[in-house]
């Protein structure tokens, strides 16, 4: 009988299916046990495939290792990989690569699991960065740092939204919320530029009414928002009715969307079997569309637009402010608390465009309030002059 039709494989499939069903019912121990049984059977068959059938052998080797991985037995998954890799022949080039990638994933997750405990769930989130400045395993440090910070901010807002928390105006989430979920960042896979995050449920929080957050749901929600941002900002509005959260989330996705200079595309996804597959890809056109959506959502009377280098930010003041400088002139804008906390950090020392409103302050001084700020591409001095004090169409109040 062909090994593909071996009864052990059929039994392994049934066990894996029951394991997936147990997992969806959050019966983690039962799921782990069933996956382990399935893995053991798949492994037996995989090891019997002749080395001359490298493709089949590779597929079944990865399948048996993946089943061990899904059972949470990272040591056994590691042993399985070593068994096949140490024999050299009988694996295709992609087969060896996939086994090594899964091995690396096992090492990372095993380390994180030691820190968070076996009872905490762990779900990956990957952010792939592509563009002219990105090559095998290398990317501009500014880009990766900014993307990492913005993604962390967006994940945090998504989590707070899911937990039903009032919109946070300043600073980092409090200890109670930090206890509900945890975000780890892992090194990129070799030969790629993929930022990797792991989301884990937190330990039991101490404050009443704050429950641990399910990382699978958080990642699923986050990707749903990302897909909505990719397709149409109105879909984000449908998912996030609360205006301050909506604005914060739109702003995070707008600022993480590439501007096309060094990065042309940014893809978000999760390579986990625990979630239905779905990803989002952001490109420069999304940056433009999301900016339009953010501006359209704000009521701007007496509009003003200024460009300059962002030199100073003070988010801790009672009335947060930031200062931009252009050709020796200084413009200080105030902002509503919490409006730019998630996104303004990476903009320091960069050329930005501020959209806002102007009004008469105390003693007749001009008061500038920022409604939106984004990094812009450095242009010619003619372009910069043209951008000065360009009027933004006012919305009906």
């Amino acid at each position, binding site marked *: 009988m062909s090994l593909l039709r071996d009864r052990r494989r059929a039994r392994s499939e049934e066990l894996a*299916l029951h394991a997936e069903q147990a997992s969806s019912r959050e019966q983690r121990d039962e799921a782990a046990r069933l996956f382990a049984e399935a893995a053991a059977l798949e492994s037996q068959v995989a090891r019997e495939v002749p080395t001359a059938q490298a*493709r089949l052998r590779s597929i079944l080797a990865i399948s048996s290792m993946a089943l061990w991985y899904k059972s949470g037995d990272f040591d056994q998954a590691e042993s399985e990989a070593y068994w096949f890799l140490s024999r050299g022949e009988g694996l295709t080039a992609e087969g060896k690569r996939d086994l090594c990638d899964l091995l690396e994933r096992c090492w990372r997750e095993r380390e994180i699991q030691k820190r968070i405990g076996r009872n905490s769930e762990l779900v990956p989130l990957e952010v792939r960065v592509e563009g002219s400045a990105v090559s095998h395993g290398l990317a501009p440090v500014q880009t990766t740092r900014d993307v990492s910070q913005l993604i962390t901010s967006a994940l945090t807002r998504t989590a707070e939204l899911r937990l039903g928390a009032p919109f946070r105006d300043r600073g980092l989430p409090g200890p109670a919320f930090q206890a509900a979920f945890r975000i780890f960042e892992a090194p990129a896979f070799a030969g790629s530029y993929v930022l990797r995050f792991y989301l884990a449920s937190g330990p039991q929080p101490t404050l009443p009414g704050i429950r641990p957050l399910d990382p699978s749901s958080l990642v699923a929600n986050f990707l749903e928002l990302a897909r909505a941002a990719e397709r149409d900002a109105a879909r984000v509005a449908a998912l996030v009715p609360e205006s301050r959260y909506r604005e914060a989330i739109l702003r995070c996705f707008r600022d993480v969307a590439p501007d096309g200079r060094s990065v042309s595309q940014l893809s978000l996804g999760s390579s986990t079997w625990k979630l239905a597959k779905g990803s989002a890809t952001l490109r420069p056109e999304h940056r433009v569309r999301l900016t339009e959506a953010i501006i359209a959502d704000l009521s701007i009377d007496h509009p003003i637009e200024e460009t300059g280098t962002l030199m100073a930010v003070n988010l801790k003041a009672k009335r947060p402010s930031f200062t931009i400088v252009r050709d020796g002139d200084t413009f200080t804008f105030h902002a509503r608390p919490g409006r730019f906390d998630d996104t303004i950090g990476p903009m320091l020392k960069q050329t930005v465009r501020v959209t806002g409103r102007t009004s008469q302050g105390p003693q007749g001084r001009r008061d500038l309030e920022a409604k939106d700020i984004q990094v812009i591409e450095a242009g010619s001095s003619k372009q910069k002059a043209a951008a000065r004090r360009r009027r933004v169409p006012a919305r009906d109040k």
Partner: protein
Amino acid sequence: MDPSESIFAGLHPAASCSPAVLGCFTEAAFVSLARFHSPSTTRGEIRWSTEEGPLELEWAPPTPAQLASHANQIDATEQGAYAVAIGAVQEVGGYEVIGRAHHASGADLLMLPDGGSEDDLVRLEVSGTCDHSEVPRRLQSKMDQLGRGDLHRPGVAAVVSFDRLRVCVAEDPE
């Protein structure tokens, strides 16, 4: 292969993989179809590469137990898509589906062309959706995955939508 006359004789694909697994996928398909259509026959379309044709599925209304077992709509859509895709590749494409192979992010189906040996193994990547406008994007995404390397080719990608019954299949040959 001629999709111009595509009729599935019921959603009980006679694949060689585990009957329990097929049964689960079929139930999920019943549940997904019942969300948008009335039993027992639903008409739609199938597109195989550049050729298009009508599609007709015969199915049974899900029982209360089946509805309860497949209450998670996202899982039901994905698993139901497996059942429809298996029917499509077998009856239209002439493949025999022989089981699943797992990887870190999920599992794909393995199939052999009619009369083929194990060396002719073909991977089937399936995606299910309840929004037919998603089909082109998902198919492209699946094709991108198939193009990745020697384990994924030859491969076939299939996307199934349930709101407006549609099956789109694309092949990535060796």
